[in-house]
């Protein structure tokens, strides 16, 4: 989230697309209710199903899953055509005036530079034209034919209301009503918020779904303001934190990135991470990259990280592919190239696409370690559960360890909520039986591994035997110790270079802010964006001050928000070129002639003049990008592509299947189905009574929603002679499941390009362990293809067939 849950109360219009907050995030959704009740805000829901969120909306329109980009580019077209754009904001705070190099173009669904064999682009033409001064050329009048604004107008011209209706199946009158409601938010005193979740991410073009809405929000002037923003409703309590800390193949903590084979030494690695500003006076905050990186390496290897060995840069592994994400790695496992696997609080047998392939992949491991507070299906993938897990244990040679861990009620530490608040929590009881904290398990494993390397030697022991391990109890590090490491501390005293008698940073002290970090090894910091979370003043994440001056919804002294306790990102953009709020009733920060004052920590330096420094400080431009340059794999603008499995062909580019820049492995390509055999458009989702595969272990929730079902329309039920509550068999080209049919008015057939499209809804909460009845989930059916940029699998749009059935017992 750029904003926070409590900030939603400040909005005038809430657009829920790609999510179902009333169902999946009920207590956060109360702030929507608050905005509706107190401000008269309106709620729009666009979804294939009439969801619980839709049931309390002011306006609902259906859409076929996987066509959100066409819808949103159509809304952008409407706003530009009807002059509903916040022009000053767009000119000042976006790259609309920037001129793009000659040679860039888009035709037949492809941008310039496409290589079909590689399914990838040469992105060299997706760049700005630079002047002799090294800065981007601009045309403030937005008239230059190659300026971003003109290119955008050209790009979206095809997304007429008629085209949107053809692709999305959204009736034109409903679509235009929504366009009109959204366009009103281009006024300076109106703002809109976008609340989305996995309904946007779980597509082969998920990142571009989100970009399309972000572009619309920028054109309306709604980023950085109270009640505005792009608000990702994250699905789990700490995937924000785990991503912040870089627990992904290609990440280091704080969104630094791992080196590649081509970055043969630290100097080469740093050479592409200089982030020289592209416009005069811009902060381009990543210019401090080296300070964050060296401080991270010091937190990893302490004294062993020295200027002489490039702070142990070479001890980090290097990537030869963009990333060993889960999809790639399970494909390797499926091919027999993997021996060992650890699942820490993760149940891939139910949460990764194409369960049949997951089972086969796990069966090829030598060993699998599950650390979990619950008995997961993954830890039992080898167990014969009849139709619910049809395997032969005797033929599976994998050694499996199930290690019992604590749950939230028994552990201490911080989690990061969707609004980037780091909130500390405390244990209320001891773990059951012999269960242990994950920290204890990781420390025990590490201590044993290090001892083996010290005793026996072996393959490159240096990074293991030198890992910085400063904990009071080496076998049982405590949460406060890791929290302090992540905040950062002073390794050696830093004095003022002008006056060496003056001490700037004292050895051993916690740092206050990432502004204090150094690139010479005198500071260590595990995760620079968390700096300020545990300072010499103590644990800022444990703060419980509920004061909220002027009722802005910021709650600045409750817990800690990264970065720098900033509650609304890009808040500089809430004020005009002179630093006056666009909407005085929604003041966030304001320039008083010498400094920024107000209710939030400004993005830019407190004394940076409003005319000079742009709000988007992480971008070398200082502005936000309507045109993403070469930073997105699949295009500098979003474009409509069908899901890989779609009931219709791409009407804008009939030759293209799926997202042309999305990676797909041969086995997974061969496993795709087509609409002649699998005619119905399926999607997956959560129910409010359940959380993933956890709450089926909770008696109350198992009672509330005991049994797996699928949802279909009355029309489809009649067509296929399916009874309400009767058994059906749902199949894709990868597998099949049995379910009770919920025949509902909440799903209605769509008309897309003259064809009737039936939608099938498949909730995801059942498996074969826990207190609920045994059942299946959508991952028995879904394809393995990820988003082109971040490899999130396409769970939200795939093809199935549905047939009446006698149920699993007799089949």
């Amino acid at each position, binding site marked *: 989230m750029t904003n926070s849950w409590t900030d939603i109360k400040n909005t005038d219009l809430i657009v829920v697309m790609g999510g179902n907050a009333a169902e999946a995030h009920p207590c956060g959704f109360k702030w929507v209710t608050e905005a509706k009740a107190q401000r008269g805000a309106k709620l729009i829901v666009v979804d294939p199903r009439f969801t619980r969120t839709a049931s309390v909306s002011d306006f609902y329109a259906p859409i076929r899953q996987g066509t959100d980009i066409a819808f949103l580019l159509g809304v952008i077209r409407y706003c530009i055509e009807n002059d509903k754009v916040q022009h000053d904001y767009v000119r000042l705070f976006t790259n609309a005036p920037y001129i793009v190099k000659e040679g860039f173009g888009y035709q037949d669904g492809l941008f310039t530079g496409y290589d079909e064999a590689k399914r990838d682009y040469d992105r060299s033409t997706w760049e700005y034209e630079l002047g002799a001064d090294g800065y981007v050329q601009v045309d403030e009048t937005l008239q230059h034919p190659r300026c971003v604004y003109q290119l955008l107008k050209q790009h979206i011209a095809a997304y007429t209301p008629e085209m949107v209706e053809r692709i999305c199946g959204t009736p034109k009158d409903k679509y235009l009503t929504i366009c009109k409601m959204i366009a009103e938010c281009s006024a300076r005193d109106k703002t809109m918020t976008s609340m989305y979740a996995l309904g946007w991410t779980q597509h082969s073009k998920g990142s571009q779904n989100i970009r399309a809405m972000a572009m619309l929000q920028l054109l309306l002037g709604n980023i950085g303001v109270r009640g505005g923003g792009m608000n990702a409703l994250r699905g789990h309590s700490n995937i924000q934190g785990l991503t912040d800390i870089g627990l992904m193949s290609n990440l280091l903590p704080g969104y630094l990135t791992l080196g590649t084979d081509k970055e043969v030494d630290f100097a080469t690695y740093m050479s592409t991470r200089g982030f020289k500003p592209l416009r005069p006076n811009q902060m381009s905050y990543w210019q401090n990259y080296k300070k964050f990186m060296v401080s991270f390496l010091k937190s990893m290897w302490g004294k062993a990280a020295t200027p002489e060995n490039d702070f142990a840069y070479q001890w980090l592994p290097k990537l030869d592919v963009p990333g060993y994400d889960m999809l790639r790695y399970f494909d390797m496992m499926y091919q027999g190239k993997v021996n060992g696997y650890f699942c820490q609080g*993760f149940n*891939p047998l139910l949460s990764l696409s194409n369960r049949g392939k997951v089972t086969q992949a796990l069966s090829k491991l030598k060993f699998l370690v599950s650390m979990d507070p619950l008995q997961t299906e993954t830890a039992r993938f080898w167990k014969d559960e009849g139709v619910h897990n049809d395997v032969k244990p005797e033929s599976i040679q994998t050694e499996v360890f199930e290690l019992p861990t604590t749950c939230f009620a028994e552990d201490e530490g911080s989690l990061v909520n969707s609004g980037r608040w780091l909130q500390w929590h405390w244990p*209320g009881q001891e773990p059951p039986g*012999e269960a242990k904290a994950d920290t204890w398990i990781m420390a025990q494993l590490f201590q044993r591994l290090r001892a083996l390397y010290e005793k026996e030697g072996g393959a490159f022991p240096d*990074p293991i035997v030198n890992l910085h391990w400063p904990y009071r109890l080496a076998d049982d590090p405590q949460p406060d110790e890791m929290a302090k490491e992540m905040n950062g501390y002073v390794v050696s005293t830093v004095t003022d270079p002008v006056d060496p008698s003056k001490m700037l940073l004292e050895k051993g002290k916690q740092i206050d802010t990432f502004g204090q970090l150094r690139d010479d090894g005198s500071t260590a910091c595990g995760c620079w964006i968390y700096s300020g979370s545990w300072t010499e003043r103590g644990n800022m994440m444990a703060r419980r001050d509920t004061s909220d001056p002027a009722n802005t919804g910021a709650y600045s002294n409750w817990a800690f928000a990264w970065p720098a306790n900033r509650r609304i990102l890009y808040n500089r953009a809430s004020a005009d070129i002179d630093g006056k709020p666009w909407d005085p009733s929604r003041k966030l920060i304001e320039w008083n002639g010498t400094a920024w004052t107000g209710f939030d920590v400004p993005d830019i330096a407190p004394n940076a003049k409003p005319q000079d420094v742009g709000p988007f400080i992480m971008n070398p431009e200082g502005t936000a990008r309507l045109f993403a340059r070469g930073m997105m794999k699949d295009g500098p603008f979003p474009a409509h592509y069908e899901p890989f499995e779609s009931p219709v062909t791409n009407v804008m580019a009939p030759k293209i299947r799926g997202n042309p820049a999305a990676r797909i492995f041969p086995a997974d390509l061969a496993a795709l189905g087509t609409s002649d055999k699998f005619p119905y458009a399926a999607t997956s989702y959560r129910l409010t009574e359940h959380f993933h595969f956890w709450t089926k272990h909770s008696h109350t929730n198992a009672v509330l929603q005991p049994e797996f079902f699928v949802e279909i329309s009355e029309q489809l039920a009649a067509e296929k002679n399916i009874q309400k509550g009767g058994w059906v068999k749902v199949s894709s080209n990868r597998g099949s499941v049995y379910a009770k049919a919920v025949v509902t008015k909440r799903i209605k057939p769509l008309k897309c390009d003259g064809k009737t499209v039936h939608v099938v809804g498949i909730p995801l909460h059942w498996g074969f362990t826990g207190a609920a009845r045994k059942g299946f989930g959508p991952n028995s059916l879904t394809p393995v293809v990820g988003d082109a940029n*971040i490899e999130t699998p396409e769970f939200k749009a795939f093809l199935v067939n549905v047939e009446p059935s006698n149920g699993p017992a007799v089949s």
Partner: protein
Amino acid sequence: MLHELSRRQFLKAAGAGLGGSAVAALGFGGAEEALAQAVRPFKLARTTETRNTCPYCSVACGVIMYSLGDKSKNAHPAVVHIEGDPDHPTNRGTLCPKGSALLDFVHSETRTKVPQYRGPGEKAFRQISWDEALDRIARLMKDDRDKNFVATNQDGTTVNRWLTTGFLAASATTNETAFLTYKVVRSTGILAFDNQARV
């Protein structure tokens, strides 16, 4: 100045009130003492409150856990009740159908309680000790790493990676667990490192 009654004071007062003064005020004479003895005091009055946040979605509602036991050294606390934290700015005391049933999650019959092991081709888990499990896993890791560690690529460039073992991290562990996990996993050269944000 207004004296604020803390939640605890209120609970205690309410609990004691039921058992004593309120009944006495009714004036039942000798019977009142017997009755007072029989009234069960409000159970949360003698519990310890602990602040936590809901482990499910990212709204991160504040919760209060009520545990038996006073947190003294040899007392073993057990959570007996969980409710929304009224002071929390986001949820203001409310919880959804998932958060309201957290107690059942904490005390679920299908929680893992002991380390278990399943050997090749076996049909069931059996209990093993922590030492056995951890020693065996460390051995498996080291043998696989020693055998398959890639120090340099074909061009002779230092790459220091280990591709034959991977690690999936969680979605609800703390930042502090995440950082310790990060350090350990990265120090081994593992590249197949991912978390639930992926899916």
